[in-house]
């Protein structure tokens, strides 16, 4: 595990100079959504019965938080992994040391989880100041966001490690990640979606993470028991971690 932490340390060091590039997608974008939709659009919504007593801003804040964390986490499973394996090769360099390929995979996920936690903690404070957080239990959603982030990064890392080009990266973000962000219960309950789409959304971890975060932040009940939501997220985390380790071994130590 210490070897994995060294891999994460490299990312922290790089992030000291690179953090500015992520400020917009991490904080500015979700806060603009929160203001425009939560305050603006929310003012037009008369029937708030679907939000379990919460305001519309309180309803969407947890989803915005998890959704924006996941977008950054998905990105982190694509281009930077390709850079580590091929374009720059810092992962190839690492496996010449006592650090192993599984350590590299694990360390990468530690970094993703840590950054996701920090990002959601900051978002939470800002959202609380804006009155969009209903309960102190919302602190738990930091952990939920970090887990959901890993649930996205891990399988994408495995994918990246097993392909030779970044051709499909943009389509993955546009066709998979962005639509999931819009339709995974972020802005409205998924019960408004046709049943087929509800199933699609239910396969991926984002909706489950959003529902969990919303439950702890607002007390709004979810269609499924929280344990089921947590279980789905954890299955993605565990299976993703395993396939990522395996794919990293194949790529880095052929």
């Amino acid at each position: 595990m210490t070897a994995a932490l060294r891999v994460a340390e490299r990312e922290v060091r790089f992030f000291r100079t690179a953090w500015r590039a992520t400020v917009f997608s991490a904080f500015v974008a979700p806060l603009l959504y929160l203001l425009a939709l939560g305050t603006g659009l929310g003012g037009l919504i008369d029937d708030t019965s679907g939000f379990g007593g919460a305001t519309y801003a309180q309803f969407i804040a947890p989803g915005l938080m998890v959704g924006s964390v996941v977008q950054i986490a998905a990105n982190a499973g694509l281009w930077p992994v390709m850079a580590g394996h091929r374009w720059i090769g810092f992962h190839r360099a690492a496996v010449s040391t006592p650090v192993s390929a599984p350590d590299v995979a694990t360390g990468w996920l530690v970094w993703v989880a840590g950054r996701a936690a920090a990002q959601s903690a900051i978002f939470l404070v800002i959202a609380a100041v804006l009155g969009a957080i209903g309960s102190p239990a919302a602190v738990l959603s930091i952990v939920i966001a970090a887990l959901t982030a890993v649930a996205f990064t891990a399988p994408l890392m495995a994918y990246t490690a097993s392909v030779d080009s970044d051709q499909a990266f943009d389509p993955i973000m546009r066709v998979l990640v962005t639509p999931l962000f819009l339709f995974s219960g972020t802005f409205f309950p998924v019960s408004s979606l046709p049943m087929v789409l509800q199933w699609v959304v239910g396969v991926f971890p984002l909706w489950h993470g959003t529902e969990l975060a919303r439950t702890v932040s607002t007390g709004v009940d979810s269609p499924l028991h929280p344990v089921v939501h947590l279980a789905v997220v954890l299955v993605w985390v565990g299976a993703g971690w395993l396939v990522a380790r395996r794919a990293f071994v194949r790529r880095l130590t052929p």
Partner: protein
Amino acid sequence: MSVGAEGTNTAPAGDEVLAVATGLVKRFGSFVAVNGIDFEIRRGEAFGFLGPNGAGKTSAMRMLGCTSPISDGQLRVFGLDPKRDGWKIRSRLGVVPQLDNLDIDLSVEENLYIYGRYFGLRRQELLAKVTDLLEFAQLSERRTSTVDPLSGGMKRRLTIARALINDPELILLDEPTTGLDPQARQLLWDRLWDLKSSGTSLVVTTHYMDEAEQLCDRLVIMDHGRIVDEGGPSELIARHCPREVIELRYRRPEFHERGAAAAADLGLRAESMRDRLLVYADDGDAVVPKLDVEPDSISSVLVRRSSLEDVFLTLTGRSLVEAGL
């Protein structure tokens, strides 16, 4: 290029064996990169893998470096099994890969620092070490620079400095000077000599014969994944080639052919290259007049010492450059 084969290999090689391979094989699918090779690397020596591109040198190096599992045979490094104790072995190795994989996201000093952290070295310890290694690599002035603007030679020196961060017992250098201009090569050479003189064990792959001849105490010549011969550079040259080589360029192709025939008549071995004829002889100067098949048929002639290049040519029938194409 005319380098004395004797007297250049000064570091004493001990008896302690650092790595031993028996019947070592590396397969990628149906492609056999390394086809059953045996070798032994001893403490304090500079050991070379000489061969053209695609001979299997890099695959052999990666197995030694425990970043590529062996497909068959046996390999022990520091007496340990790479499969079970890979990380323990790697913690005692220094690796200079063929392709620079320096971290362009980080500064020069951070490259050394983070690499040292991979070895579990403490922060305080590393700060002093980074300063020393930058001095060694003649990069102290570029300490806070990013890596990208560095020249090829500087990058390679930084990669070597990085490989020294853990005070390795054995350093693996894969084509350390390929792609560098002569001046950068010389500077890098000086560093490798320093290491060798200080008693560090080196394993070097190269397709530069002069490099192998001067630096290596012992080497294996590889071709098509196999070892075709092994020994000290002067030993190999003495075994396979007469003392000197005459390089002849004739004015016309028919002179070239007659020259080759003349060499054969003298009982000398000749290799006909595209642009020149190589004739092997113990006393080149004495032979040259006999190869001048017609007055003024030769446009240029060079008599030089036999080199490992000639050994390779003798063993495989191809020059190293041809073999790598």
